[in-house]
């Protein structure tokens, strides 16, 4: 599995290794294969880009697809018609739903290996229901995106084609079921996971980056990018090309955070009714915003599951079948930056196209690379607390901490982890593994 800025090109580059020099220090290094990505994409047709990037990581294929599509809009200076934007948004919400459900139940539970053990069951929500919901979320992605795990409806300037009537009504039916599962999941989480979150005290003050809508509420698709400082004051709000330079040369005294927890902190609140209500429980339990408790990201994610389902329902309700204006005319190709608020966090793509619409340069700024400093800060304080002895408990906490960020490099569950202690010469003197 690749970290997000490498297409599955360099299978051996991904490592999660906690290393030290003499002392035990934790660090996660995200493979930075920027050049590799760019040379992979060079010479490719612009309209194919959304097909390539979604295979970087199938768990958030929708986000990658849409980020590429939005960057390509910018490359061609195109403003997609309303109908196309509406389809893309609905697709984005379906993608976030799929991702969050998959993360919560299949990637993140502390199963004992093997797929059967990954499904966390309880009386309220049988594993069967969740798997069924995941399948149906995939079906909605297929209806909206054209292909189940790897959508392809997005093209520069719009979408390829509209959605047939009967498909649309099928998607609407599914969406209301998905909301039901989301609400039950949230309840189930509050009954169990919430207490666990409260017990996890690890807290890392960070800047938060998220996409917000016109009302300053969290967006799970497009909008303005906003960064707030650890106290919650706004640092910058702008479009991707305005915010990108600051992100790339991060000089602040605390790391930058993206993802559910950052969305909680950077926005004024969820953009849907029920999700906003549910956020109150979280704030009641953990204090007022901003919240820097790493484990709270899990809680925020469950609430976003509800939010995504609500957004999906209303987006689908607003879609008109038979809308034929789904594609804008394109200008001469050039350079463009586009962002999407992806399931895992803000995701930014940049492309430079030649006059023929062929890729010359390509760059992805993924949640993984953005969060690297944040994850490492969390691990450092965790290791500092645990002392020199690496116990099963330490390993479990490391796993949970990394997991709380939902990075792309640990998509499987329970993910494997290697912690090594190195002596002064860099030789491995002790090693712990968790697979």
């Amino acid at each position, binding site marked *: 599995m690749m970290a997000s800025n490498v297409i599955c090109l360099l299978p051996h580059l991904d490592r999660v290794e906690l290393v030290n020099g003499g002392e035990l220090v934790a660090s996660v290094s995200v493979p930075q294969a920027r*050049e590799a990505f760019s040379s992979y994409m060079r010479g490719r047709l612009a309209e194919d880009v959304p097909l390539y990037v979604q295979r970087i990581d199938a768990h958030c294929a929708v986000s990658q697809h849409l980020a590429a599509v939005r960057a390509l809009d910018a490359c061609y200076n195109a403003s997609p018609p309303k109908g196309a934007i509406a389809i893309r948004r609905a697709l984005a919400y379906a993608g976030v739903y799929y991702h969050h459900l998959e993360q919560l139940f299949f990637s993140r539970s502390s199963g004992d290996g*093997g797929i059967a053990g990954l499904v966390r069951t309880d009386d309220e929500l049988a594993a069967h229901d969740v798997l069924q919901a995941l399948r149906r979320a995939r079906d909605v992605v*297929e209806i909206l995106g054209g292909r189940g795990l790897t959508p392809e409806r997005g093209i520069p300037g719009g979408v390829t084609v509209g959605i047939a009537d009967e498909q649309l009504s099928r998607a609407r039916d599914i969406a209301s079921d998905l909301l039901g599962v989301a609400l039950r999941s949230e309840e189930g989480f509050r009954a169990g996971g919430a207490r666990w979150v409260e017990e996890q005290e690890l807290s890392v003050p960070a800047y938060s980056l998220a996409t917000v809508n016109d009302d300053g509420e969290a967006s799970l698709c497009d909008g303005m990018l906003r960064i707030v400082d650890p106290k919650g004051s706004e640092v910058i709000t702008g479009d991707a090309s305005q915010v990108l330079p600051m992100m790339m040369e991060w000089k602040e005294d605390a790391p930058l955070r993206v993802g559910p927890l950052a969305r909680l902190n950077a926005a004024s609140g969820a953009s849907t009714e029920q999700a906003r209500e549910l956020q109150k429980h979280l704030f009641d339990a953990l204090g007022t915003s901003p919240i820097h408790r790493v484990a709270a990201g899990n809680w925020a994610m469950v609430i976003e599951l509800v939010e995504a389902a609500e957004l999906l329902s209303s987006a689908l309700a607003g879609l008109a079948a038979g809308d034929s204006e789904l594609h804008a005319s394109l200008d001469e190709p050039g350079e463009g930056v586009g962002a999407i608020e992806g399931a895992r966090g803000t995701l930014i793509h940049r492309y430079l196209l030649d006059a023929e619409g062929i890729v010359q340069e390509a760059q992805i700024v993924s949640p993984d690379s953005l969060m690297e400093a944040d994850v490492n800060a969390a691990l450092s304080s965790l290791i500092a607390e645990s002392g020199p002895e690496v116990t099963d408990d330490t390993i479990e906490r490391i796993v949970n901490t990394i997991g709380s960020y939902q990075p792309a490099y640990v998509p499987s569950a329970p993910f494997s982890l290697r912690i090594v202690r190195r002596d002064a010469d860099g030789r491995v003197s002790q090693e712990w593994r968790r697979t």
Partner: protein
Amino acid sequence: MPNKKRLAFYAGSGCGGCSQSLMLSPSLATMLDGADIAFWATRSGDLTEDEISQLDDKGIDVLMFAGPVDGEASIATAKLLRRKAKRVVAYGACAHLGGLCGLTNVIPGAKLRELAERNGGFIKPLSAVIEVDYVLPGCPPPQGMVERMVKELFLADDVPDVGTVFASSKGVCAQCDRKHLNNPLEEIRRFHAAPPDPDICLLDQGYICLGPVTRGGCGAVCLEANRPCTGCAGPTAGVLDQGGAILQSLASLVPLSGDISGEKEHRVLDSIQDIVGTAYKYSAAASLLKRRVNDGE
């Protein structure tokens, strides 16, 4: 119910789509009921060489192998896994054809190739490294094909013939219900101007579609989304080189001008851009040429 089968899933690398496509199978529960799981590894770190070594030789009935193979380490793992399994399925485009990763084999003078070389090798389809018994095509495998594999491999009493590809023996065109106009190919079109007419064969409209040379069974879903088939299921039965086959079809669609210099024809053929990314999107590593070479450049 036949005896419990011992099955295993291994994805050393790849995007994770393959394991999800299996997990989402509606027959998953039935499949798991009738089987023991030897392991379910979705990344190389999940399973060490040691752990694999300790398994009984031929102790696994069916191993599904997803993701591409490249350097020595992954080849060694594939060989070791082969010893442990009675039957091996190349699961998904990466294992089947090298997949999108295979394009790195062909990138000119790229840093990537140096990196690949340092990593110990170029992308290879699984069948270049070990014997493969079955193929489940697709990137990731479409649901219908996954179902067929699950039924034939895990739910049936007898095993399918070695060499079975869990897809149609016909091309994608057979499942595509677009109208045919049998237009000559006079101009290559791309999505720049406008998306194609959703009811007419893409090739008739000048858009490159790999449908004629690609194994069907996917339901031509991409065509339904008004995207061309990009060839994820690999070549149709009997075709060795998928990219060569589509280039051949395209060439034959270009009308002969009668001018023996071929100038007019060449103009059409020259306008096909990104030949490798278009004709060999998933199959560069499985092509007859396999990778870019240095022919006295």
